[in-house]
């Protein structure tokens, strides 16, 4: 066992010495390789995190959402609608929701004011999202005033800050009491922004939606599964564009890697001959080359992946935000919550490390099985 370890140590020593000897070539290759892993990993981490955010948002959204339309535009749900929806068979829970947008001229951003389902926010207090905490320096028990659209000034105290489960969903959110909400926006009593409802049997969702459309012809039911599909296709499309662009880069890299790794120089061939003549087995030569390929590809993979992680989750993906984030205009800034998918990492590893190792090994095999006596006639 110790012999085995000593032997590997010697091989690694030799490999490192060889890599240093061909510094220029190896550094260039390492750089391109790392860059490729970096870009691929960035796209992967970014789209995966976005999908994750979207899933978090959708998880909290109702199965069916009913909006009333006037002249094709979203309007308030008048009193009586909720009762009528209750008569549709299959509808389980009905809840009128209250929410609205507010433009804060201090930080030039839009907030979403909302009354939480459980009505848990006390009168005169607010629960704010992390973006507000950041942008306006708010903390628990701070006071804050907003000027309503009516011109009247309202003051609140902050009861809590929302956790950062998904910034996309909650960054700009402000939760408030129903009474406060109606007063602030001068919302007519008995009216709601829209209606959220759940359906007893998931297979009936479409059916129920049709019945609702017939019952309330001025309203539009929005199904969660439809939203989900829209999100998914938007992400797939964006990811697809990125990957299409990248495939050109991957191809270029493959050609480079193949040429660099597989094109044994005359020098290297001679060296392998010498090693064999002085007592190295073919297997030793191959192991040495495996170490070489392994060291290069693992370094590239680790450095590239860590850089991608920092790029996406620490720096906010400045490199391809414009391409991938459709709604970036709405959000002055948002940080993705770091999520990593093991399978995705494994896939990336396989598609970057494996081909390189193969490119290293194929020609070595050819060189290593040549006769060692050629060295005597150099």
């Amino acid at each position, binding site marked *: 066992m*110790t*012999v*085995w*370890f*000593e*032997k590997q*140590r*010697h*091989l690694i*020593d*030799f490999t490192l*010495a*060889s890599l240093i*000897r*061909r510094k220029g070539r190896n550094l260039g290759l390492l750089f391109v390789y790392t860059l490729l892993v970096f870009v691929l990993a960035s796209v992967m981490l970014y789209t995966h995190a976005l999908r994750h955010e979207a899933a978090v948002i959708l998880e909290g959204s109702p199965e069916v959402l009913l909006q009333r339309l006037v002249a094709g535009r979203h309007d308030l749900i008048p009193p009586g609608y909720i009762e009528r929806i209750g008569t549709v068979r299959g509808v389980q829970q009905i809840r009128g929701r209250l929410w609205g947008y507010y433009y804060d001229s201090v930080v030039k951003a839009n907030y979403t004011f909302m009354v939480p389902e459980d009505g848990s926010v006390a009168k005169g207090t607010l629960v704010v999202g992390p973006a507000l905490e950041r942008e306006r320096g708010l903390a628990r028990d701070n006071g804050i005033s907003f000027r309503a659209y009516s011109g009247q000034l309202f003051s609140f105290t902050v009861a809590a800050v929302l956790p950062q489960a998904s910034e996309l969903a909650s960054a700009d959110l402000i939760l408030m009491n129903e009474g406060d909400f109606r007063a602030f926006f001068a919302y007519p009593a008995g009216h709601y922004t829209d209606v959220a409802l759940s359906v007893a049997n998931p297979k009936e969702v479409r059916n129920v939606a049709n019945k609702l459309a017939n019952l309330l012809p001025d309203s539009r039911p929005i199904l969660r599964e439809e939203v989900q599909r829209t999100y998914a296709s938007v992400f797939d499309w964006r990811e697809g564009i990125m990957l299409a662009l990248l495939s050109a880069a991957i191809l270029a890299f493959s050609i480079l890697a193949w040429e660099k790794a597989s094109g044994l120089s005359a*020098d290297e061939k*001679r*060296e392998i001959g*010498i*090693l*064999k*003549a*002085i*007592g*190295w*087995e*073919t297997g*030793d030569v191959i192991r040495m080359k495996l170490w070489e390929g392994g060291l290069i590809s693992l370094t590239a993979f680790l450095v590239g992946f860590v850089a991608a992680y920092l790029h996406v989750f620490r720096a906010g993906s400045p490199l391809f935000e414009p391409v991938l984030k459709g709604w970036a205009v709405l959000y002055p800034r948002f940080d993705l919550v770091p999520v990593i998918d093991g399978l995705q990492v494994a896939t990336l590893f396989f598609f970057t490390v494996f081909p390189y190792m193969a490119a290293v090994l194929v020609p070595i095999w050819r060189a290593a099985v040549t*006769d*060692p*006596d050629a*060295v*005597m*006639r*150099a």
Partner: protein
Amino acid sequence: MIELRDVKKAFNQGQHNEYWALSGISLTIEARRVTALRGPSGSGKTTLLTLIGCLARPTSGRVSLHGRDISGLPERFLTEIRRKTFGFVFQQFNLIKGLSAMENVMLPAYPTGRPHRELKQRAEALLDRLRLAHRRDARVEWLSGGEQQRVAIARALINDPEVLIADEPTANLDTALAKEFMAILESFGEEGRTVILTSHDPLVVESAAVNRVVDMRDGLIVEP
């Protein structure tokens, strides 16, 4: 200790350019002696050395080492025998550029998995003995011809082989360095090592360090 019986070697056998480099060699090489192969260019000296040193296999005939037939062994076993039994000094030295003298000397021992420290001590001792201790960290391409040759000799000795094989060891050296090499050779003889070398150089072949001279011509051994 090494016995060759009717050994023949053909290159490109069965093709239009088939060439018999050795056409029937029978020879016994005694242990602990210095044997020199002499003959004109193309007479098959290098080819014979590759067969003795397990770098290649004969087309026909037998090579045996310590009474054991090694001519039919597969590559893996030949490599092991080569590493354990033979040390090589090649005509062009064949050092690996970019590595230091020390690293070059240690190379043949890497596959043995001997502890690094032990290896280093042995390599240092060898370089010291060949008066190269002060150059051990220099890259080999910066060394002079004589120094390179001594690195090659040290490398051949790192695994402490029974047999040292040297092909034209003095071809690239001037007279003074060639004499120095013969002195080193003499010390091997005294140590009880078996040495087999080839040479055109009368200085080598006629030196007192050489115990026996074998003359070759056209792939055969000839009586002088």
